[in-house]
């Protein structure tokens, strides 16, 4: 099941059989040509669109002129100028703080949420209801942020917004609250909208993992008198732990991606900037809208380096539990 077990199996192969393995490797490849056919376009795509353009990060150390096109070496080298400019930018502290807080909130709430939903759905015995809930929860994933943002803005509007009407009718408030203009509410709105949009889709993989749990273990636990909660805690969660770990490592690698479209759309009011401005929205506004490409690349590179660091650390920690990515 886990990487660790596979590794142990390979380690068990005696060295003299290596030759045989090499031969078997290619015959194996040709035997699974149909599967290979599905993999190669993906690899090609990643190679063409992610690896070939990667030399473009060098423009972070240049003053890139867009008319030089792909001939980036025509541009003058400027060293760490753009990195310094970013670290010294007046907005740097606010942006880093917001990026980290928003990421942290999205991680702490958005990461466990689909796992909890999957565990809950797993206990639903009424199949039709389960399917219904699953469909309803994963549908928002396929809506663009423009639509979701519009929906949220209408719901929270002070003029005929459903949330305000509801709160007023139950007497919780006397006057409509301008939710999307108040700094204190922004993170809560952002994170809950994200959870609402992604929870169902993210839970699919956990549901699949749960489905692979051996039913005999539950039967045995039943006989031993374990409650439902005990079964979840002692059987389901430990069994799907490798999946959870791998997704957690991936999430760590994305830690500085606090979001882009969601914030851009929900934080329409500039007064929210002290809490809403994150690296990506800043780069979009300052770097791309003003065509400061080198600057934008430098910030992107900074983000990527931090992400790789976080990913490696998370992987190192996970390796101790035997569930690492590599």
């Amino acid at each position: 099941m886990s990487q660790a077990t596979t590794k142990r199996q390979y380690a068990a192969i005696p060295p003299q059989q290596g030759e045989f393995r090499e031969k078997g490797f290619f015959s194996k490849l040709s035997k699974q040509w149909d599967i290979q056919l599905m993999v190669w376009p993906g690899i090609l795509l990643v190679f063409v669109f992610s690896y070939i353009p990667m030399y473009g990060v060098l423009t972070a150390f240049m003053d890139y002129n867009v008319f030089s096109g792909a001939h980036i070496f025509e541009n003058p080298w400027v060293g760490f100028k753009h990195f310094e400019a970013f670290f010294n930018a007046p907005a740097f502290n606010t942006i880093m703080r917001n990026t980290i807080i928003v990421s942290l909130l999205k991680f702490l709430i958005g990461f466990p949420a689909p796992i909890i939903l999957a565990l809950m759905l797993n206990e639903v015995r009424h199949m039709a209801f389960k399917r219904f809930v699953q469909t309803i929860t994963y549908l928002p994933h396929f809506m663009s942020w423009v639509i979701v943002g519009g929906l949220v803005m209408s719901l929270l509007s002070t003029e005929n917004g459903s949330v305000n009407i509801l709160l007023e009718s139950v007497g919780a408030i006397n006057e409509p609250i301008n939710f999307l203009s108040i700094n204190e509410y922004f993170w809560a709105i952002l994170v809950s909208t994200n959870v609402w949009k992604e929870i169902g889709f993210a839970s699919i993989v956990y549901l699949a993992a749960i489905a692979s749990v051996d039913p005999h273990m539950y039967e045995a636990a039943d006989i031993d008198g374990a409650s439902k909660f005990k079964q979840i805690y002692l059987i389901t969660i430990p069994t799907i732990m490798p999946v959870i770990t791998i997704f957690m490592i991936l999430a760590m690698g994305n830690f500085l991606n606090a979001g882009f479209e969601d914030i851009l759309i929900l934080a329409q009011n500039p007064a929210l900037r002290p809490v809403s401005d994150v690296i990506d929205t800043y780069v979009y506004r300052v770097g791309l809208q003003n065509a400061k490409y080198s600057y934008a690349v430098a910030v992107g590179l900074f983000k990527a380096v931090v992400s790789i660091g976080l990913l490696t650390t998370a992987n190192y920690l996970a390796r101790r539990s035997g569930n690492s990515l590599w």
Partner: protein
Amino acid sequence: MGMKNFKKPLLLAVSVVLILATVLAGCSNGGKNDSSASPSSNAASTAESSPSASSPSASSETPAPQGWVFGSEPLEFSAFTNYDWQDFPAKMEDNPFWKYLKENKKVKITPILGKGNAAQLMTTMMASGDLPDLIYGNRFSPDVSRLYEAGKLVALDDYLDKYPNLKKFLDNKFIDMLRMPDGKLYQFPNWYTDHSTNTAGYVVNKKIYEELGSPKLETMDDLYAYLVQVKEKYGKEVIPFEPDRTVDAQGIGLLYTGFKEGALYQSLGSQIMGTVTGDKLTSIFADPAFHESQKFVSKLYREKLISQDMFTQDRGKVLEKLIAGRVAVYAGSGVTTYASQGHYELIKSDPNAGYFMIKPLVKAGLDSSKVFTGGYDALGWNVTVITTSAEDPEKIFAFLDYNTSPEGMAIQFFGPEGGNWNGFDENGYPNFTDTYNVKEVADIQTKNDFVNIAGNSIYIDPAKNKLEDSKPADQQNWQARWQKEITWPSGNDITEFRTNLNPPADGALGDTLQSVSDLLEQILSESATAKSDEEVDKILNNADTAAMKLGYQALLDWRTEKWQENRKILGK
């Protein structure tokens, strides 16, 4: 988080640009260089293309000083609109004016469509060197100056005398203002004008106004009293004051202009971002009139007399409210389009309903004839440039010249000659026929809006007025009537503030401009929704300190200098 982890818009965008650049550069490196290198290659290509043309043009083959006759031989070029929300027509036949050009003037335009992503396409085209022959877009977009700096634009000076319409209508000093640092003209202005084209103002809901006894609406105090009355009578059903999308100042900016004679609406935008004090631009955050107007706005906000969603709503919502008649007073920097849509919708069910406009509101004691709700620029907003990719830039200029000529303008606005108009009167304006079809003309104008790239307000506005003036006021087109009665007279000439006031984006001043305009946007919202008058002062004073730390004073000084240079060019 789970699956949506692979979002790296920045890297993605940069990668896409670069990969496209690689691919396109690979394709186009071959023969592109020589066309930009020698201007003399133009002559060769003209000679090449002309034998295929019909015989009458053969005589005009020799370089004649009066220029090439537009329509005499086929003309082909590519054209691109550098706006996300606008494109040239995909097919020439889809557009009345371009259809006419195709059928009567042997023009074949290949549109390059941004399809909602013009900025990205523009960057890609720059990076690949594969530029469209003609680019239409925002005069203040950094793209124009980048194209100029890269030597990708064709100077138009040699054509000005040969194709004289621009020179004939637009005063030379304005043409001079459009010149680039090397002293040459590269931009052909759209909607250049010699009169106010302001469409900012206050729109009042007629039915509500009459139901409340048609009170006097001249000062800010009148406005406040009226809004209170509206709220008392209609409660939540009606928005007392609708300031449009205030992220762009709009209604809030209009109120600001009412607190000081000669105040500029554009003081609150990144274009000027300062207040005029004598012959200097000074900090907008320290402007007493701005403090005063934001206190007024925040009072309206606290007392729920102004749209509470003003900083978050989109314009669709504003239009929806206007059409439903749920707005008592509407104010913005361009109100006539939406208000007229609302007006015609409302009078469908009640002929006495609808909207009308009032003169600029002022703080008690100020002279309303010295208060301007908006400014106009003699050079308009958009320009067309011809790039070095064009095989024959002179002929493209001839095309622009035709667009801006009386005949071209008349066809764009009233259709081909022989339909709604026939020939010109002694002043050069079209003679309208008895078969003039109001609906058809409105339709033609709407459809041609996207191809009006060399709009000549100096000619077409009097031509339109000639028609409207012959009708009684209540039968006139809503927009035409209120523009003439209210918004045009309440606009002032701000041409001197509009050109060359943007510092280069990649210098220290560019950084300051970016940071301070971010700050201004934020502060505009914070002070408009402040909890008390004292808080407004506090927010603005703190902003002033913060802005100065960001280098605001240097930006103001630099802009003052450029503004004074403009004044000199304009002879002021």
